[in-house]
């Protein structure tokens, strides 16, 4: 709580946090939706925003606001799973390869290079078709996670390679730190900005991938998500027909999501780096 209070003093964090809270609120709201997101034709079609349809209705006869609630919930779940899962792999592989070096490093980098090189698109189509498009949000998240780490692991590794040469590694060793705790306690703070950045990149990639997969049919287009919402709006030419509320909603929401994540990550990284935190405080009281 104390930390949160500290962080909230930063405008960037406050804004990002606010947006995220709103999104989470929307996601929770979806549990109270008066409409089944899988049913069409439940409200009059193509209405502009007006009470009670505060974000209008779509050509499928759905209420855009409530669709958004489901979309936010599902997209958050899916992309966070993908982001977090691939981060975990990337961090583990990158850190261990960088820290251990030698054979371990070579093996892990071989693995990640192979992942880098493989035509991801092809593989996902393959897996998708084997799963007969029955991928759930969670398994899609995991799948994207499995394929989203290789590059970031390489980046993390290169950072660790230089970090491990710094003397504090030895201090930590002399303090009896075990490999894992050493790597996480000593190197992690340096990597947080990087990890956050790759996390955002990964989340945006995952959401983009989800749209692509939905288009290809590997993922079910009926599951409401920011991606499929956009996809439907585009298919029904909301842009040209002037249903701006329909196409604008997912676009603005996803941009807001990324801005929020970005601001949060910057703010948190600054907070974690005492040098920057001090500067920040120095600035704010000047």
């Amino acid at each position, binding site marked *: 709580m104390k930390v949160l209070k500290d962080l909230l003093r930063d405008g960037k964090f406050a804004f990002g946090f606010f947006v995220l809270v709103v999104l989470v609120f929307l996601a929770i709201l979806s549990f109270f939706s008066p409409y089944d997101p899988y049913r069409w034709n439940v409200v009059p079609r193509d209405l502009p925003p007006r009470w009670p349809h505060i974000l209008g209705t779509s050509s499928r006869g759905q209420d855009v606001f409530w669709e958004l609630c489901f979309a936010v919930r599902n997209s958050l779940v899916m992309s966070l799973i993908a982001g977090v899962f691939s981060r975990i792999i990337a961090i583990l592989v990158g850190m261990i390869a960088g820290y251990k070096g030698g054979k371990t490093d070579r093996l892990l980098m071989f693995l990640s290079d192979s992942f880098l090189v493989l035509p991801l698109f092809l593989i996902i189509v393959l897996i998708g078709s084997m799963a007969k498009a029955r991928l759930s949000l969670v398994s899609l998240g995991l799948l994207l996670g499995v394929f989203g780490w290789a590059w970031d692991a390489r980046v993390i590794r290169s950072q660790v390679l230089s970090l491990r040469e*710094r*003397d*504090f590694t*030895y*201090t*930590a*060793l*002399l*303090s*009896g*730190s*075990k490999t894992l705790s050493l790597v996480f*306690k*000593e190197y992690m*703070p*340096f990597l947080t900005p990087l990890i956050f950045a790759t996390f955002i990149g990964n989340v945006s990639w995952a959401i983009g991938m989800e749209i692509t997969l939905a288009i290809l049919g590997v993922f079910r287009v009926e599951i409401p998500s920011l991606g499929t919402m956009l996809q439907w709006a585009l298919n029904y030419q909301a842009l040209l027909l002037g249903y701006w509320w329909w196409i604008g909603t997912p676009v603005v929401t996803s941009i807001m999501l990324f801005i929020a994540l970005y601001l949060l990550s910057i703010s948190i990284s600054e907070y*974690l*780096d*005492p*040098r920057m935190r001090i500067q920040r405080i120095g600035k704010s009281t000047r």
Partner: protein
Amino acid sequence: MRELLEVKGLTKIYSLGSIFSRIKITAVEDVNFEVMQPEIFTLAGESGCGKTTTAKIILGFEEQTSGMVFYRGKPINELRKKDKIQMLREIQAVFQNPFSTFNPLRTVDSYFYETLLNLKIVSSKKEAEKKIEEKLAAVGISFEEFTQRYPNEFSGGQLQRLSIARALLTDPSLIVADEPVSMVDASLRMSIVNLFKDLKEKYSVSVIYITHDLTTAYYVSDRIAIMFRGNIVEMGPAEEVLSNPKHPYTQLLRESVPEPDPEKRWGTKVVLADTEHEEYLRIGCKFAGRCPSAMEKCKKNNPPYFKVNDVLVKCFLYK
């Protein structure tokens, strides 16, 4: 007095450079010495002569190219494999660069608590605090000043002292101190050096004291080894070596110590090497290029050790 640590034929070769230009540097070349218990053993010499590398090998942070290190008569690496924690308790170190000793993104005190808890020296935070306070007092830092602060909030000297305090936490038998007081004023330097002395006398602690400050080396150490470009060029009792240096490099070194006396100032100018590489690449005596009394054979052959009284000298002058 028992032998605590023995270094035998230690060699470390680094290779530097890119695909196009590769250079091999023998950072440590066939180094032999032993440290008694208790003893303050000083390693001194030109910057870049391999002192830190030697220390890192002893501490197990660097792998030697060849040679062995024995601790209490057993190969140190095997001991480490057997009981890491015990070895960490027994051997502690202070690093050269105080600014990089602690992670700038972590508070300094966390290392203190970790040392105590990881090495199972204390079992509670309360106990830890007591212990830390005690050690901090020994280096002249107050507990309040120290809690919850990041390394960049301390001055260089303060960091060095913190580093020493941390090493003392485990009550080690051997402290490898790599220039532990280079950024500390003379008065405090004295108190720390005195601390080493006391530790040795009261608790039989041995110290490998790596330093450029030959006056304190003279003041505290029992024996001293002078290194030059990876080789020990002279080794013996500190008093003897420093008051009566034999190797031309030791002589130069001794002569270069600035006296804290405005009346005494240096005479002749010294010649410095531009880069270290050229001297590393020498086949014969590495100092031959700058030595005032260099002979032909110095440039071609690597001189062996000669014993003069208690002192080993690696110079053909003493053949």
